[in-house]
């Protein structure tokens, strides 16, 4: 990637950059601390950013991703010089324009034109410099005749467009963008991105904080992932976004109270080992494991070839291990008779972390399922066993359409499925 080019010099150099905030429970604690000349501490410490090492070479577009509170904004504020670091070095070469919040300096009572000059002055441009840019700003913002009206009469979209135009036309060496692009209507967003692309083509260095992962992968040459104030990942946008998604996924799973690694005692001995594969349509995989059987049981234990919608059933899949698998995953895919994939799931996705398995082991997984209100008919289930995690895994054994069952319904279902609908009504009669 272009960030690896040796000829470009680093314009942003961060070394061990850390930012600590004191958190005071009560305002009076500040006074006490002041009175004791800081000898006694009355605050908790909160590290918004810790030991960040980062070099951004000239012309790079760097994406910064992370969850809320991970320190993204703090990083931008430090690079912009708005905040002072607690520890470490922050070296920035060239003029910086920070789009942290659009329209911060706008006065609602003033006209758009006046606010353009105001915004310019805040960013260090004088009257003449702004006059040179005025036409371009006006054209870009598409405010039209409203430019001489007070900003308070503007719609949110107009306000944002004007603010963005001013900010982007300051012409900095380094542009810091914090989510600010996600404003206005889609057409304007498109133009904003185009404008940023142009700046990129002009060789500007851009640091781009966003939740929009697609934008990060599209735009950036490089990305970093921040988490709890630390840099977790630094690499190509694809790699970093993938890592971020895995992180989020892990968190959500934990939050749902799942995801504990079951020990031997946690296993459910009532799940029967199955060794029947009704049909083998198409089979592939690395053969590190082998599907032994797949059966759909009723909760009473009888084998189901047909089942009514709404019924709770258990799908059981057994596999024999041939090579040791550190992270086995067992899952299935359901298709309708036309081969349209209806749903898929697996142990990792459902938050069940299977323990490592050794050659000769037989692993059986039972999935409790409530049959959804799908259109009645014939459905197929394809079982699979894989090694890895939800994002990256290798298929060890996969059997297409191994198990067929009929979904029945006493009522009529229009279309592909029935939603849970509760109607209510009101009539206004013509008197």
């Amino acid at each position: 990637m272009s960030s690896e080019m040796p000829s470009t010099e680093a314009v942003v150099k961060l070394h061990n950059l850390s930012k600590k905030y004191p958190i005071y429970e009560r305002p009076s604690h500040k006074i006490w601390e002041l009175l004791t000349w800081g000898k006694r501490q009355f605050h908790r410490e909160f590290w918004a950013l810790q030991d960040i090492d980062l070099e951004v070479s000239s012309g790079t577009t760097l994406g910064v991703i992370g969850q809320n509170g991970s320190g993204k904004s703090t990083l931008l504020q430090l690079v912009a010089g708005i905040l002072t670091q607690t520890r470490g070095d922050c070296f920035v070469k060239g003029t910086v324009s920070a789009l942290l919040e659009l329209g911060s300096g706008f006065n609602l009572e003033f006209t758009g034109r006046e606010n353009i000059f105001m915004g310019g002055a805040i960013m260090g441009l004088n009257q003449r410099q702004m006059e040179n840019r005025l036409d371009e700003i006006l054209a870009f913002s598409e405010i039209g005749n409203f430019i001489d009206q007070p900003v308070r009469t503007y719609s949110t979209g107009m306000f944002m467009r004007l603010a963005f135009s001013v900010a982007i036309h300051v012409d900095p060496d380094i542009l810091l963008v914090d989510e600010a692009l996600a404003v206005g209507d889609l057409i304007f967003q498109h133009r904003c991105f185009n404008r940023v692309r142009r700046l990129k083509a002009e060789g500007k260095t851009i640091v781009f904080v966003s939740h929009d992962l697609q934008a990060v992968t599209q735009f950036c040459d490089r990305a970093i992932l921040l988490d709890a104030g630390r840099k977790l990942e630094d690499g190509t946008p694809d790699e970093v976004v993938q890592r971020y998604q895995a992180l989020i996924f892990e968190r959500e799973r934990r939050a749902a109270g799942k995801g504990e690694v079951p020990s031997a005692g946690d296993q459910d001995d009532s799940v029967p080992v199955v060794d029947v594969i009704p049909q083998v349509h198409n089979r592939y995989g690395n053969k590190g494991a082998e599907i032994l059987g797949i059966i759909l049981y009723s909760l009473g234990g009888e084998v189901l070839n047909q089942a009514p919608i709404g019924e709770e059933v258990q799908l059981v899949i057994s596999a024999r291990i041939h090579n040791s698998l550190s992270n086995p995953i067992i899952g299935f895919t359901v298709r309708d008779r036309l081969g349209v994939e209806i749903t898929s799931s697996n142990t990792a996705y459902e938050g069940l972390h299977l323990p490592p398995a050794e050659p000769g082991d037989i692993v059986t997984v039972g999935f409790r399922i409530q049959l959804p209100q799908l259109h009645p008919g014939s459905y197929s289930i394809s079982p699979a066993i894989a090694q890895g995690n939800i994002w990256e895994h290798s298929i060890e054994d996969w059997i297409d359409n191994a198990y067929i069952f009929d979904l029945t319904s006493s009522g009529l279902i229009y279309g592909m499925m029935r939603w849970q609908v509760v109607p209510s009504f009101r009539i206004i009669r013509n008197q």
Partner: protein
Amino acid sequence: MPVSASLTVFYNFVEKILIRRHLVWTFVVRDLRGRYVGSLMGLFWSIIHPFVLLLSYNFVFSIVLQMKLRSGPTDNFSLFLFCGLLPWLYFQDTVMRSCTSVVDQRNLVQRTLFPSEILPITMALSNLVTHLLGTAILLLVLVYLGLLGSASMLFPFTLLPLILFALGIGWLAAALQVFLRDTVQILTVLLTLWFWFTPVFYQMDMVPESLRVVMRLNPLTHVVEINRSLFLENRVPDLESWVILAGSSALTILLGGVVFRKTKRKFVDVL
């Protein structure tokens, strides 16, 4: 050594402000416009207000209460009062508005690379317009009464220390307000006390001798006293008053500037 270090800090501080003078100017215009935007007569109100104030004082103190001064060239109490009240109001407005200025503009301070020190400067300069208009009314009345003498040309030499003193206190208050939001309340109380310990409503020679020494430590006492002798008596006061005034203002602006500069880096953390 710390003195020269402080001077360097202050020098750099002022230098940076001068670089951003365009921004200062923009903010002063914005503040003045913001006050009168949407009103029909705009800045004209700044003339009406002191004028009506002077007329009202004249009615209450000279006509109703028939107050006379013990000494001096004019026994017009309302003119005497007005001379003292103008600089006091300038000081009070500047300090009070400066105090909350940084906190009020926290959006700018947090989100842009904004030199927050210009906010109190903005207040000092924008209030100056009102102050000068008020002073112009006073001078016109004095000319009309045939009281104005050449000594009044020294007026800028009390005005400048007044501005510097107000700005110095303004910087201190603004910085303190960021860390402690009660500052503005404390300041309101302090300013009330300060007002009555400044000879606005009375003459210095009415004050007991022992208290006079203390009151002379108050720079505003000198502003009021000097202005009165310049405007009403056409007399240049002795050097001592000038020296105390100039010295205390210089010290205050230095202190305010250095404190603001030193604490500024923590502003965004606590805003």
